[in-house]
């Protein structure tokens, strides 16, 4: 499923990240890489998605979150 389809408190794992190199660089350098476990903290309509990953609370805008495939853990 997409990251935007997850619900609060779900424990998951990043499956794949899609996009151009520029986007990949930005997203991976903050720590979102394939295989990384994460937890969705908040996911409200029209709001960025809040995830907890690599001991960091990260806010991701929705358009970017759409491009991230995840699975339940």
């Amino acid at each position, binding site marked *: 499923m997409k990251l935007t389809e997850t619900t609060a408190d779900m424990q998951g794992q990043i499956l794949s990240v899609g996009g151009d190199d520029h986007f*990949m*660089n930005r997203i*991976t350098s903050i720590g979102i*890489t394939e295989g990384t476990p994460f*937890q969705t*903290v908040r996911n409200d309509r029209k709001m960025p998605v809040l995830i907890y990953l690599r001991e960091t*609370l990260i*806010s991701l*805008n929705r358009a*970017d979150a759409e491009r991230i495939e995840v699975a339940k853990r």
Partner: protein
Amino acid sequence: MTASIALLGQPNSGKSTIYNNLTGSRQHVGNWAGKTVEKNEGTYTYEGTKYSVTDLPGSYGLSGNSDEEIITTDFIKSGQSELTVVLVDASQLERSMFMLAEFARLDKPALLVLNMIDVAKDMGKEIDTAALSEKLGIPVLPFNATDTKDYDRLKKLIAEEMKAPHKMTVAAPAEQADVKADSRAKFEWVSELISGVTKTGESVYKLSKFDRLMTRPVLGKLICIGVVLLAFLVAMIIMIPFMSIGKMIPGVLHDPVDQLLTGWNVHPWIVSIFSTMIPNVLYFTISMASFVFGVNIVFGFLEETGFLARAAYQFDGLLSKLGLQGKAICPMLMGFGCTIGGACGTRVMDNWGQRMLAMSIVWAIPCASIWSIIPVISGMFFSWWQTLLVCVGILLYVVVSMIVVSKLFSRKLAPKETRSGMIMELPPYHKAHWKHIIKEAFFKAWDIFRRALGTVTLVSIVFYIFSFSIDGNVNNSLLYRVGTFIEPVTRFFGMGWQTFMAFVSGAFAKEAVLGTLNAVFMGDNSLLAATFYAKTAATDASLLGAAMTQAIAPAEALAFMFATTFNIPCLMALSTTYKESHSLKWTVKVALFYICNALVLSCIVYHVASLFM
């Protein structure tokens, strides 16, 4: 001999704090050759040796192809600095060590600073720095950037490393062809390094009670707005003492300077420059700087505690519609205080196009000066509830302007495919370190003061020449001649020569508007004195009101208020935008838009209002 070091770290690693504390006021801001990226260099002296410090432009990594990343990589590779101080956030070790993984490939002498070690401790994270240092082959220093005592240890370590520098002995992460695999390799490298050095925190995250409120879609926004209003109130209170001192300057200096120069038989025209204009220029600049000081203290506090990151989260959705992103909320809020502060505040945006777009949108936000003159003028013509309506009308048009500016410029400045959406960390709430906040606010205020002094003096001299008349009567000034000559044109836009002149002076400094109105409507007053005494000798609003209501129609007053509010903010804001964007072309483009926008708006407001009034 000068030793040279460089600072490298991700955003939020505390790099600028360390840079400022190391170099103090011995800083130089320039440009990287051929690039629009700011180059910050400073110096400090430790035990007789002078050290030059280069603050490398920050991003999360080094392998992307943004200007910042290319500059940083090239600089380190060139070996211009003998030692690179790599900063990581100890409270988020795994993630922030990514920068070190990137740096490892460059194979240059370095030392590692584990900043925010206090925060890590508070979170119950222990880091075995000796073991980490052993694995890496370079010294590792636990550090708290806001604790002044730690700087001696840092300077001492740097001095030692200069004599016998260390390169990392651990093998750099193997290079991979595609971005994904490459990043994964770097994070694996980090995991390998920190395993056994620190234990990773618990994997289930719970929002704190306050964050649970702050992240709620509606309530969170309301809290943000409330906190920001409160912040402005506090900023005003902070600036009052400085303002009052500044306010005394023209009164205190006028007579002695006047007597002294007159005693030397200096021509009275020159005397008035030194006795009236210069002291008032000082007063203007001091008020401006003290406002910047106050705003920076409160926003410094909100930033350091982690509040602004929450505000960015809250407003990301709305701002994306303008082609911006959540991080732009801070400069936009600052814009309600001072456009200059807002323009500087756009530094948080990491994409040049979006940054320029944010600056041009900040221009649409009426600053505190506008909010202080509009009710006065409106009160002369309208009742209190009509004045309220005027203010609401202005606020509504702020939204319209923002949308128009975004529609007009975003296609060139931030085309959809280049936009960087908000990907940011929400740092844990920190305690504020007041000493550090005050120091930073002081640097910024001093910087504005220095820059403003020159600009304001120049503008004042130009204004002096235009408003000069031999007998002190406005009708004999160049301003009057030009004004009445072009009046047929300005009439079309809804303004007579008097209001048009006030409109023009408002483009230099909004503070000058009331003074100019006073001069052009009260006639018998010297325009120069009126402009500069606008604040000091408090314009008598009731007298001016009587004169104005007799001379012009309410429709013209309304048109004038809208035109002044939505014109270019002020000369200082213009020059700041140019300095921050390094693009004269775009600064001029945006300025032209605002002038046209103000005139068209004035024209519409005047002709529509004339139908009803």
